[in-house]
């Protein structure tokens, strides 16, 4: 059979931001779907969003309610969401209550009632909320299976896309015939994690098209359910061809150490202990980008945007004007119980809005603290996905990370995330001549030459300034307690590393 012979399955918008991406572009038309989850998990809201997105006067939606929440109360609350359009209730969406027939008659009568209404309205969308209460009365397995089978067949024949909503527990997945018949199975979960609630959505089954596997976080806001795909909405975005462009810090000696700057699309880690100037370096990186006409985003977690911009001013860097000009956005992502995916969504939104080329995450420790405890366990994995997705669209990321200063070790990160980064710049304190001074070294640059030199630097009112040449008159600098070697200071040009991986 050629591709042309295959039936084309139309994809309907779900009306849920982020969900179309997760289900592979939209919900298959005429599919028979289950939305399952515990009470309060957002099932009804999700169904409403789909209904409001697809119902028209010509092909309306029928929303059957059964026992449980009354339609009046349901609509009282649902109308608070921004997607709720009351005009659609005259003609496009009809709510029909089946309580009486469910209470007083058998499943055959329920099916007849649904059939009658569907034949009258010719709906594009049918929802039964809650289906679980509809089939709660004792009946044989065969009777239940036959009812579900006939309902699914009838609604598909009438070209309706259907949602059955139910309060199911996960251990019911195995034996319940409804899950066998369904084309799509959406499972909504909300789990308490210490003091936070983590909401996750899983597409357990979706016939006919590829959905993004795994658990996707979602949030219920005044706009309804908003889902955050694990792929961050970047499915189908081709990774840009490798760029040979180098992005400078605007610190000539450092740029020289980096072989001309960091490669575009790299992930750079600046590691060092408190006060070593990580944020200063990050600010200079973003400011230089703006000077070069490259819009930037700074995601801050530990201080407010105003304070961040004021600190930049004290270094002679103007971050106020580019913010006004739409060339820079400082995102303050502090609210607790964020998921990485939500944070990513905010960052991606901003990246797309201003066409950002550089992104600073200041800092990873602050980022982790802003996450819900439940997400902290997956921090490394989430960070990997985030960096992969962003660098994949050509954004150069500079992250700062605080490391515990030790005089016996030289760690790059407390997160063991150096494998996520292409380039690492390590800052540290050293004790020299009765002073606590600062040194900097480029640890690695994937795919590029970099200096092997250890350089001393200072933080001045001009930002990070690298002093003199490499420190050749000390040994054991990276231990933090060097010993004077008696050799004079170097007058050499920086010596270069080939950039070949040595396994950091």
């Amino acid at each position: 059979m050629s591709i042309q012979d295959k039936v084309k399955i139309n994809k309907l918008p779900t009306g849920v931001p982020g969900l179309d991406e997760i289900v592979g572009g939209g919900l298959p038309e005429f599919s028979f779907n289950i939305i399952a989850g515990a009470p309060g998990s957002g099932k009804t809201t999700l169904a409403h969003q789909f209904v409001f997105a697809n119902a028209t006067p010509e092909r309306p939606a029928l929303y059957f309610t059964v026992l449980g929440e009354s339609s009046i109360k349901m609509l009282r609350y649902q109308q608070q969401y921004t997607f709720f359009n009351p005009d659609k209730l005259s003609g496009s969406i009809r709510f029909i209550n089946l309580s009486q027939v469910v209470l007083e008659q058998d499943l055959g009568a329920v099916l007849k009632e649904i059939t009658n209404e569907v034949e009258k309205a010719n709906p594009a969308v049918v929802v039964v909320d809650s289906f679980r209460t509809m089939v709660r009365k004792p009946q044989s397995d065969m009777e239940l299976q036959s009812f579900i089978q006939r309902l699914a067949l009838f609604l598909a024949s009438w070209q309706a896309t259907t949602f059955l909503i139910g309060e199911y527990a996960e251990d019911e997945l195995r034996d319940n015939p409804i899950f066998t018949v369904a084309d799509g199975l959406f499972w909504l979960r909300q789990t308490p994690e210490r003091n936070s609630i983590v909401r996750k959505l899983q597409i357990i089954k979706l016939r006919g098209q590829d959905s993004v596997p795994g658990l996707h976080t979602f949030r219920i806001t005044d706009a309804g359910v908003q889902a955050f795909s694990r792929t961050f909405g970047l499915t189908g975005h081709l990774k840009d061809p490798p760029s040979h462009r180098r992005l400078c810090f605007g610190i000539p000696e450092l740029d020289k150490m980096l072989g001309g700057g960091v490669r575009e699309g790299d992930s750079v880690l600046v590691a060092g202990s408190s006060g070593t100037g990580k944020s200063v370096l990050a600010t200079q990186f973003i400011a230089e980008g703006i000077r070069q006409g490259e819009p930037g985003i700074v995601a801050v977690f530990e201080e407010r945007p105003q304070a961040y911009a004021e600190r930049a001013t004290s270094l002679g860097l103007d971050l106020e004007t580019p913010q006004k000009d739409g060339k820079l956005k400082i995102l303050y992502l502090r609210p607790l119980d964020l998921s990485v995916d939500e944070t990513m969504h905010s960052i991606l939104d901003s990246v797309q809005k201003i066409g950002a080329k550089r992104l600073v995450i200041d800092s990873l420790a602050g980022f982790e603290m802003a996450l819900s405890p439940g997400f902290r366990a997956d921090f490394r994995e989430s960070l990997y996905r985030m960096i992969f997705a962003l660098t994949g669209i050509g954004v150069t990321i500079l992250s700062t990370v605080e490391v515990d200063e030790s005089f016996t070790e030289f760690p790059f990160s407390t997160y063991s995330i150096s494998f996520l980064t292409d380039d690492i710049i390590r800052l540290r304190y050293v004790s020299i001549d009765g002073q606590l001074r600062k040194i900097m070294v480029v640890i690695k640059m994937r795919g590029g030459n970099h200096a092997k030199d250890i350089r001393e630097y200072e933080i001045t009112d001009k930002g990070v300034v690298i002093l003199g040449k490499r420190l050749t008159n000390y040994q054991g600098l990276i231990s933090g307690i060097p010993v004077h070697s008696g050799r004079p200071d170097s007058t050499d040009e920086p010596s270069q590393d080939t950039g070949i991986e040595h396994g950091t």
Partner: protein
Amino acid sequence: MTSAPEMRYLAHRLLTYEAVAAKTSEPMESPTLRVYEKLRQSLSAFAGTAAFESLAFRALSQAKSEAPGLWAVQVVAGGSLKGLGESEPQIDMDKDLAGEFSAGDGGIILIDRLLGLLRIFLGESLTLSLLRNAWPAEAFDDRNSGNRRKA
């Protein structure tokens, strides 16, 4: 308890519309009953009989405190009204069509209260949307109001 003027006006509109329709029915039905029955059918289908019954009980209870003439009226199983015919004052059609229902008329108070409850729970916009499913557009048209006709 006072009701929102919008709901009072809407109740009046619907009663006026049904009063005109009732003139042609045989035997002639009470406009209040006609409005109430349409609301009962529409809202029972929408929210279930039990939900409608609860609203109707509450509306009747409120209306009785304002219109003692409704003392014998009851909401029975299924949400239907019983006893309205006997207690409802004879409606003067000319007066009704001129939009001059008196505040003491039990019918308009009952409908007003019922619509008022819907407005409290659903808001005005959604209440109107639901009513539009039960009545044709002309029932809400200003040109059909008693005041306009009078002019």
